[in-house]
């Protein structure tokens, strides 16, 4: 009785046979592998295995090149092809490609170099991405869906908790993309500490009221947000002072730094006050371009120094000048700083597939939240691809470069304790199986299917 039906491995593509009748295949969204040898494309088994992502990336690269070289014809042809193989409701790779496609169209339209594309974009005025303005409750639920942010929250909270042990005043400067969503759990953790019973610390929370709109966007003012947090802290027997300092990443939070410095002057005896700088996916918005010698005549010495300095570096130096108790730096582990469009496109494509790939594990197709989620990713892609100069704000840097920056700013890295690791692991257990935790030297890295997603690092003045 032979129960196992053993079949020979099927051919990789069932549709291999008719190389010159792809008109059906173009229409067929389910067709994942291309049959006809693509001129000049590698047709190795590698490509056929991963055909889609690689092929789409190649197409996008060529399209970007065509747009950059003003080759309207080629650009449109590729766009046309891409458009047919990458429906916005397709699989994760197709949706990813679709977002890049839109970004490229937007770029072409913005640069105005390709008139036809520009016209097309105008005709499709609603190409504009509609990012959702979250209510605070929506945002809380939204961020809770995936470890993308929660990983950083959990790791950072553990590190902060450890560092502020014994301080009676804890001053937290929250530079976070997520509008203080990390704070409740931090307040709760502080309130749950044993020593709180006898000596609850005073919490000061300072946030930068950024004026720019970067998703996720909140439909609540920071003042209202603050009053909710204060209220919550009180319910946990913690006194919280909340303060908004209008300050923006565009100038490296200069105003915030200034205010903190002044406060240090006013309270020089701040030995009993812990200063925590919590940077959650925010610092990569600070411009990283190094300054040109824009004032060569002012003084020869300064021009030399500024020529190799960026706002990003200056910000870190300024933070170091505040002599913080701990700095937690959490950010996405990718490099989107290249000045070259194609380079950026490639590295964005090879990073931002992750949000598309993960979303299936926590949001059903067609759900509102999923639309919001993907619109935010789209926004990111468009910012990376279609914008240049100071408007291009999504300038991720990989962990290695941040580590370098922190070291040269005068910080030494602090290891995350076992407790932090356990907390993160427990948190990851609550999510899909693809998420993982990696320890790299002192740091923690969130991974998806083995690929780095977000890193968390903790720093103290060296």
């Amino acid at each position: 009785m032979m129960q196992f039906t053993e079949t020979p491995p099927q051919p990789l593509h069932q549709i291999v046979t008719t190389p010159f009748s792809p008109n059906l295949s173009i229409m067929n969204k389910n067709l994942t592998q291309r049959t006809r040898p693509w001129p000049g494309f590698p047709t190795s088994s590698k490509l056929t295995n991963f055909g889609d992502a690689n092929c789409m990336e190649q197409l996008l690269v060529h399209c970007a090149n065509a747009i950059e070289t003003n080759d309207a014809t080629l650009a449109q042809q590729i766009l046309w092809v891409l458009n047919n193989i990458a429906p916005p409701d397709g699989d994760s790779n197709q949706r990813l490609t679709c977002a890049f496609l839109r970004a490229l169209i937007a770029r072409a339209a913005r640069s105005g170099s390709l008139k036809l594309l520009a016209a097309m974009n105008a005709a499709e005025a609603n190409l504009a991405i509609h990012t959702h303005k979250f209510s605070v409750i929506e945002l809380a639920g939204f961020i809770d869906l995936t470890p993308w942010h929660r990983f950083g929250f959990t790791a950072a909270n553990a590190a902060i908790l450890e560092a502020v042990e014994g301080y009676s005043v804890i001053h937290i400067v929250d530079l976070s993309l997520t509008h203080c969503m990390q704070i409740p759990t931090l307040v709760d953790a502080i309130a749950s500490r044993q020593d709180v019973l006898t000596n609850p610390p005073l919490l000061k929370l300072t946030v930068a009221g950024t004026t720019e709109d970067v998703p996720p966007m909140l439909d609540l003012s920071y003042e209202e947000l603050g009053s909710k947090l204060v209220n919550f802290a009180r319910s946990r027997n913690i006194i919280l002072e909340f303060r908004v300092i209008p300050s923006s990443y565009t100038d490296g939070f200069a105003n915030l730094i200034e205010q903190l410095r002044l406060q240090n002057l006013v309270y020089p005896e701040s030995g009993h006050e812990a200063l925590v700088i919590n940077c959650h996916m925010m610092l990569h918005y600070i411009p990283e371009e190094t300054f040109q010698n824009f004032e060569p005549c002012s003084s020869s010495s300064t021009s030399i120094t500024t020529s190799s300095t960026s706002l990003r570096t200056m910000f870190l130096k300024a933070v170091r000048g505040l002599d913080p108790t701990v700095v937690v730096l959490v950010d996405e582990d990718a490099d989107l700083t290249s000045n070259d469009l194609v380079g950026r496109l490639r590295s964005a494509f090879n990073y931002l597939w992750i949000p598309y790939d993960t979303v299936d594990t926590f949001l059903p197709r067609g759900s509102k939240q999923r639309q919001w989620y993907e619109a935010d990713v789209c926004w990111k892609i468009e910012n990376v691809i279609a914008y240049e100069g100071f408007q291009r704000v999504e300038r991720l840097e990989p962990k290695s470069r941040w580590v370098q920056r922190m070291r040269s700013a005068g910080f030494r890295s602090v290891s995350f304790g076992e407790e932090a690791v356990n907390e993160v692991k427990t948190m990851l257990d609550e999510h899909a199986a693809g998420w993982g935790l990696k320890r790299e030297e002192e740091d923690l890295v969130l991974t998806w299917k083995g690929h780095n997603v977000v890193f968390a690092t903790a720093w103290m003045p060296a």
Partner: protein
Amino acid sequence: MGDLDNSSSLVGSTASGEATFSEAPAKKKRNLPGMPDPEAEVIALSPKTLMATNRFVCEICNKGFQRDQNLQLHRRGHNLPWKLRQRTTTEVRKRVYVCPEASCVHHNPTRALGDLTGIKKHFCRKHGEKKWKCERCSKKYAVQSDWKAHMKTCGTREYKCDCGTLFSRRDSFITHRAFCDALAEESAKAQTLGSSQLGNPNPNPAKAVVVASPPPPPLTPSNNVVSPALSIQSSEFPENPVGLSPPPPATTCLTTTTTAISTTATTTTSTGNCSNSSSSVFASIFAPSSTVSQTLAAANSSSFSNLVSSTAIPSVSAMEPTSLSLSTSLYLSNNGSSLFPTSDQQDHRHYTTTPQAPAMSATALLQKAAQMGAGASSGSFLRGFGLSTSSSPPQPQDSSATLQWNNNHHSQHKRDASGGAASTVAAGLGLEGASTVLLTDLMMGPPLPFGNHHQPMTRDLLGLGIGGNGGGGGASSAGLSALLNSFGGGGGSFATYAARGGESSWESAQERKPNGAKGPALL
């Protein structure tokens, strides 16, 4: 990064297309689940065999077994011939299993899973019925072991906010709780004294320092217990021993912090309720610099948003007659305004006022068009590329919307409504056939010469995407007309316009062109 190196060499080298195409970046592959050893033996089981629990049945007593080996052992008892399979060391070949569901990624042998249990569970979870239900929380599971695992934890960690929302995780609950109005309402009830203080509107909300500090906490510890803290601390935080009675020292601490609050409060409101010396220092330091920076920031942001709105979101200005936005004005200046007579803009305005179609994109349109097939697709494709922007509905969300739009459109141009689909085809055809000049103008732009610009790569791409589109004359070999052909192929590939009678629609295209393109310049 290797990627970067590659890309830099790619820039500006499109002219030599072949060379760049062959550059395959050696990059790390995504680690997809199920990437078996290609040497492994691929086993495909039918859903029935896969799910059968006792597949090996004894012919004598009908007893079923999960494994053949067990059946063989059983057969011994009936004195039947039996044979245990020997494991021969030479024949140990790795086996992988594919999912019987044809639409599943694991149906493909290249994504087969490594063990039988794995594929069983996969099949159950992904394609099976979820028949194991948790009675407590109504979650359903397809695999019993999943359900068992859930049953161990369900209910043990459950948090309920007063707003009625349930949470299984403490973190989620805490975050929600902090921002939920339920908490604010409770504390408002519990602390009427404080609320009056809170009610004071901040006289200058734009000030730099905003302290949304709480009213001083209740003075008596017992009062505190009644406060919303109760709801959190009692049942929901069993592990938190903070409990019901804050210890006496807390009170003293509270009073001190109260003053701390009020000092900052003065800095914000400048009402000067609290005459504390340090606070005035604070205020004087804070106020001026921060306001300056705030205006700066505001200026920044407004200019930023202006830029954005003027470039990326033309619909913002869509109410004005010049609604075609930046890109169109560019268009106009280069091609002569005759391309876009005013009626055209009215069309756009008409569209923008229709409520349909948020989000999505050109691509969505094209995609939809491709799905709808036929002439509509070819038309919308062409229109998508701006060739007849005047009549393009940017975003037909559903067929009825499109229809409605078409009707409007046609009535505007006094057309026969029944010609709807045909006229879109006609637009496409007309472009293909007659408006070479237009195409060169539009697509190439002045700086690009028409004839010698088509490189082999163009044709390659055409060949891939368009050229092979069956009959419609899609395969373009003539370099000069590659462009035209590409569009022709595009129309033809969607193909059904031929079925509608290419000739007649062609003619109608010719006839209608003055209307359809809305400008003699097009001819």
